[in-house]
């Protein structure tokens, strides 16, 4: 046997399954149907006589077989089953073969392929027409009230009804599941059996058998109550109805029954009866109360939109009695501004699922009287079991007076609430009932804090609280209240606040009983502060050294401070009422009348000079006075004249003293032989002493402002202006020598000036002197000239001596007299030293007189250094000069002078390192500079002397200074030469180790 393929296997399985279905269909009595996957086509129907059979696919099966009113329910259940791929199950009506409606319980199962797709529906339908009919009969047999009650109870009750049918032979032909459960039996063991077989006691069975007979004969239902045990719940009370089931011939064919467990209901009913009685009484009371309270009732039938009104209601809306009204009609009597609001609230109450409540205040306009009324309308919507509202009823009350009263109250309350005065109400025990916003703020109660939690104790210190309770509160007069100062306390900050408190007692209007006390509180702090300020001000005025007075508008003195009294010479009481014209001088009185009074009327104030007359001594006292017109605050009427004055005597005395000092100073300045001048911080001359004018009689040489530079020698003017400008900008002392024209000649002056500064260091003035140095200058020039001539004249014999010596040396050498030749050679070297000293003097003279000349050229720096070193090396017997020349470019400047500097540095190095054998010279370029350094390994220079070596006539001294002769001019000359060429010169040295002298020249000089 070969293994079947998967497909073959499936096909075979389906065929087997189908076979089983067929067998099932044949065995059952139910209707069988097969539906297409979407239920559009009925594939097959086996009606079993109940429905017409069909083997042909039918598309209009719904119209054909399903009772029209149930079609929507069937469709919905199908859609749900398809959607969920679940069993379709529904009790519905069908159109039977004979065209009459019948009930079926229809169930269909989806048949699905391996992919889970529905291939068809396989369904069965059970005929339940009979069962439904019984139920309908049962229902029909009850009266309407009972049916409603049962219906309600079925929904709410926990126990389902027992439903059963007896044959006329007292056997059960039907028992529902609830009954089977109660018996503890199954259908098969119970149906077809009699009462006793199903567990009924003899008396019970006989009772029902009698009743069945009675129903059969009377053709009327029988009702009863019986108590018997339940299989699970124990002893229960049951209510039952037995109803005849009629055959077609009108005879009773069976007796159907329903039984209900009414154990709870009975209990409830007993209670309900009590409640009903109470309710009835309450209803009566309510109606009475409604009438008394002016409350009307209304009832809207949703279906008809008719509104039932009681008379009170009509009155409130101003409707005439007995006229029928509907909802729209009612709405038209609502104030137009409220209409929309009312309609919205009503519609909201009627929405299914809402709580149905309606509570609104609105205005109505009377239909007949046109009166505006405020009504408070409350109501409730009632919903049927389908959730639809069918009734809407409620009450209405005229609240016009209440609304007006409340509004008034609200207005008053907001007046109080936002009043700037602090207001509160407390009960007699001190518990807070009300506090307005100001009070809360004053006492530290938060805006949202519940102030009723507080009492007086929270707002007073213990001592003050005791005082208030013992002395203040009992003193509140029922009519006049109490007013006084209490020291309240801010709850938060603890600050004690002095307050003026006004208490009034609040009494019950009807009984006159005191129910609380109201307090209005005024914070006294600003007032106390203002009073303190005023006090201080008054004290200040009283004790002020300035004279203050206050007169009425006629000029009668009302107030005079202490200074004023002393100044005028009037006693404490003497000044009162005295006219101000009495204590001013005659000219001042005229001024007051003609100028001061009109001015203060016009402009409010006047300031100027007046004279007082002291009433005791008669002294006239000059004062600087300010006068003010005081006007009445509200009417603006002039009411008084106030004045403040300063005694000018100390000022005048001081000014006189100052003038005296100034005169003395001017005299002093004028008597000095030098020219003395002062200048503003900006450099403008503002004073020059008499000496200047003596020297420059003409007005045209006035030096004030910046005219001074016009008197200068043309060669000096520009330099002088620049230097002066530099001094006033930097604040550094000004020092310069220049020539000033005097008559037709120029004279040399040394001009010096220093700035005078204030406490903050700001320049207030420059003080300068011009000292005549013309004679000194001339002497200097003569000295320079003399030195120049002398040096030059000295050189002539030196030249001759040197020449003779050299000739002589040669002659000796030619004659073989070496000893004499050496001697003359020594003489020649001394001549060289003499010459070098003369040259230095000559150079210094030139430097001092500004006549040193430079011959500019551009040349190789290394060549100059090499040449110079070789020259020196020739005469230096002990030292080796090592060169390290890193800069190999050109330099611009005076070649000879630069050579002179290098010679000076090298000869110094040799001179001050007698024990060394080595000198270093090196050059290099450093940024924009060319540097040359000469290093020796000699005695060195101490740090404090290093700066001084470049000064004129300075000589390095040491333990062996006597061994270093010279005038001390070489480095001075070298430094001057380097400076003149735009360079720098410096030394680094360690005592005992040696010195390095360097100079630099700007590289840019080559580009000039």
């Amino acid at each position: 046997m070969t293994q079947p393929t998967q497909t073959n296997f499936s096909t075979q399985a389906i065929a087997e399954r189908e076979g089983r279905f067929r067998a099932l269909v044949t065995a059952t009595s139910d209707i069988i149907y097969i539906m297409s996957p979407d239920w559009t086509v009925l594939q097959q129907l086996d009606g079993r006589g109940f429905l017409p059979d069909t083997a042909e696919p039918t598309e209009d099966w719904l119209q054909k077989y399903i009772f029209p009113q149930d079609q929507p329910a069937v469709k919905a259940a199908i859609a749900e089953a398809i959607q969920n791929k679940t069993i379709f199950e529904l009790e519905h009506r069908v159109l039977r073969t004979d065209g009459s409606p019948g009930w079926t319980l229809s169930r269909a199962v989806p048949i699905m392929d391996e992919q889970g797709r529905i291939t068809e529906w396989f369904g069965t339908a059970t005929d339940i027409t009979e069962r439904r009919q019984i139920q309908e009969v049962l229902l029909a047999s009850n009266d309407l009230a009972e049916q409603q009650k049962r219906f309600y109870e079925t929904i709410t009750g926990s126990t389902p009804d027992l439903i059963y049918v007896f044959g006329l032979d007292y056997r059960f032909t039907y028992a529902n599941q609830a009954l089977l459960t109660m018996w503890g039996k199954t259908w098969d063991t119970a149906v077809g059996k009699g009462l006793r077989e199903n567990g009924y006691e003899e008396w019970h069975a006989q009772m029902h058998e009698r009743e069945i007979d009675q129903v059969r004969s009377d053709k009327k239902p029988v009702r009863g109550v019986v108590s018997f045990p339940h299989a699970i719940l124990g002893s229960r009370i049951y209510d039952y109805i037995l109803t005849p089931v009629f055959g077609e011939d009108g005879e009773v064919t069976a007796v159907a029954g329903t039984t209900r467990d009414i154990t709870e209901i009975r209990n409830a009913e007993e209670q309900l009866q009590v409640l009903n009685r109470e309710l009835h009484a309450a209803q009566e009371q309510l109606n009475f109360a409604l009438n008394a309270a002016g409350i009307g009732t209304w009832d809207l039938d949703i279906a008809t939109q008719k509104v039932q009104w009681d008379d009170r209601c009509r009155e409130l809306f101003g409707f005439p009695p007995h006229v029928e009204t509907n909802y729209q009609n009612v709405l038209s009597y609502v104030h137009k501004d409220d209409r929309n609001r009312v309609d919205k609230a009503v519609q909201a109450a009627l929405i299914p699922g809402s709580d149905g409540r309606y509570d609104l205040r609105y205005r109505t306009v009377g239909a007949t009287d046109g009166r505006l009324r405020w009504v408070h309308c409350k109501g409730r919507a009632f919903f049927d079991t389908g959730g639809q509202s069918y009734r809407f009823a409620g009450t209405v009350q005229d609240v016009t007076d209440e609304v007006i009263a409340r509004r008034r109250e609200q207005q008053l309350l907001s007046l109080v609430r936002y009043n700037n005065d602090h207001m509160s109400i407390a009960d007699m025990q001190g518990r807070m009932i009300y506090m307005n916003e100001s009070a809360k703020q004053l006492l530290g109660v938060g805006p949202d804090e519940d102030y009723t939690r507080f009492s007086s104790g929270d707002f007073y210190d213990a001592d003050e609280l005791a005082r208030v309770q013992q002395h203040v509160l009992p003193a509140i007069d029922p009519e006049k209240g109490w007013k006084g100062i209490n020291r309240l306390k801010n709850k938060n900050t603890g600050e004690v606040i002095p307050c003026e408190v006004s208490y009034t007692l609040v009494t019950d209007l009807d009984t006159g009983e005191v129910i609380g006390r109201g307090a209005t509180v005024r914070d006294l702090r600003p007032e106390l502060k203002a009073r303190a300020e005023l006090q201080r001000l008054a004290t200040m005025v009283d004790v002020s050294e300035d004279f203050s007075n206050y007169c009425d508008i006629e000029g009668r003195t009302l107030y005079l401070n202490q200074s004023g009294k002393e100044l005028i010479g009037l006693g404490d009481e003497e000044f009162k009422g005295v006219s101000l014209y009495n204590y001013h001088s005659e000219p001042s009185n005229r001024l007051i009348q003609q100028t001061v009074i009109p001015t203060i009327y016009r402009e409010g104030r006047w300031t100027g000079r007046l004279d007082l007359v002291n009433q005791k001594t008669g002294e006239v006292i000059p004062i600087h006075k300010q006068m003010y017109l005081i006007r009445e605050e509200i009417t603006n009427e002039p009411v008084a004249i106030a004045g403040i004055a300063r005694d000018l005597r100390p000022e005048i005395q001081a000014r006189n003293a100052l003038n005296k000092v100034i005169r003395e100073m001017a005299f002093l300045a004028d008597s000095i032989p030098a020219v003395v001048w002062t200048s503003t911080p900006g450099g403008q001359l503002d004073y020059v002493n008499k000496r200047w004018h003596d020297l420059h009689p003409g007005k045209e040489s006035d030096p004030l402002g910046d005219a001074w530079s016009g008197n200068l020698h043309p060669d000096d003017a520009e330099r002088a202006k620049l230097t002066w400008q530099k001094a006033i900008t930097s604040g550094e002392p000004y020092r310069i020598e220049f020539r000033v024209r005097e008559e037709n000649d120029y004279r040399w002056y040394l001009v010096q000036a220093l700035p005078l500064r204030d406490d903050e260091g700001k320049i207030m003035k420059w003080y300068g002197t011009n000292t005549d140095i013309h004679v000194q200058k001339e002497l200097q020039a003569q000295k320079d000239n003399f030195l120049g001539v002398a040096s030059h004249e000295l050189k002539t014999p030196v030249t001759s001596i040197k020449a003779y010596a050299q000739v002589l040396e040669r002659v000796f050498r030619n004659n073989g007299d070496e000893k004499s030749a050496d001697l003359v050679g020594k003489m020649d070297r001394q001549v060289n030293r003499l010459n070098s000293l003369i040259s230095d003097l000559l150079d210094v003279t030139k430097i001092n007189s500004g006549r040193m000349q430079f011959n500019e050229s551009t040349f190789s720096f290394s060549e100059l250094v090499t040449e110079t070193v070789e020259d020196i090396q020739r005469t230096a017997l002990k030292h080796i000069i090592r060169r390290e020349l890193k800069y190999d470019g050109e330099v611009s400047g005076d070649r000879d002078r630069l050579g002179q500097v290098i010679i000076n540095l090298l000869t110094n190095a040799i001179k001050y390192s007698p024990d060394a054998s080595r000198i270093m010279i090196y050059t290099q370029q450093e940024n924009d500079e060319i540097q040359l350094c000469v290093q020796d390994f000699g005695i060195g220079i101490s740090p404090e002397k290093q700066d001084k070596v470049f000064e004129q006539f300075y000589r390095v001294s040491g333990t062996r200074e006597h061994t270093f002769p010279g005038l001390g001019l070489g480095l001075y000359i070298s430094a001057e030469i380097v400076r003149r060429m735009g360079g720098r010169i410096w030394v680094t040295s360690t005592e005992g180790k040696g010195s390095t002298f360097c100079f630099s020249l700007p590289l840019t000089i080559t580009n000039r």
Partner: protein
Amino acid sequence: MKRILLADDDDGIIDATRMMLELENYEVIPTLQGQRILELAQKEQPDLIVMDIWMSGIDGRDICRMLKNTLQVQTIPVLMISASRETRQSALDAGATDFIEKPFDIDSLLEKVGSLLSK
């Protein structure tokens, strides 16, 4: 024998310098009067003129310019002597062939003179 016109207003210098030059067998025509240089130069036609830059009443540079502007003598080299090296450039500018500073070494002088005469 080369002939040198030597001019200086100091007879000590004339005397000593003349000795130096005669050590080298030059023929020296000395003068103390700067004003006579042009005349002597024209008359004697020396091979070299050695003169001081500052002589009483006259500036050697002016004489040098005159020499250089005078046809018969303008080719004669001039060695200018000065106590101030600062005048070196102005002397050369005035037409001097070389310059030597007072006081001078005999070696330097003879080197310069020899050099000027060999040209």
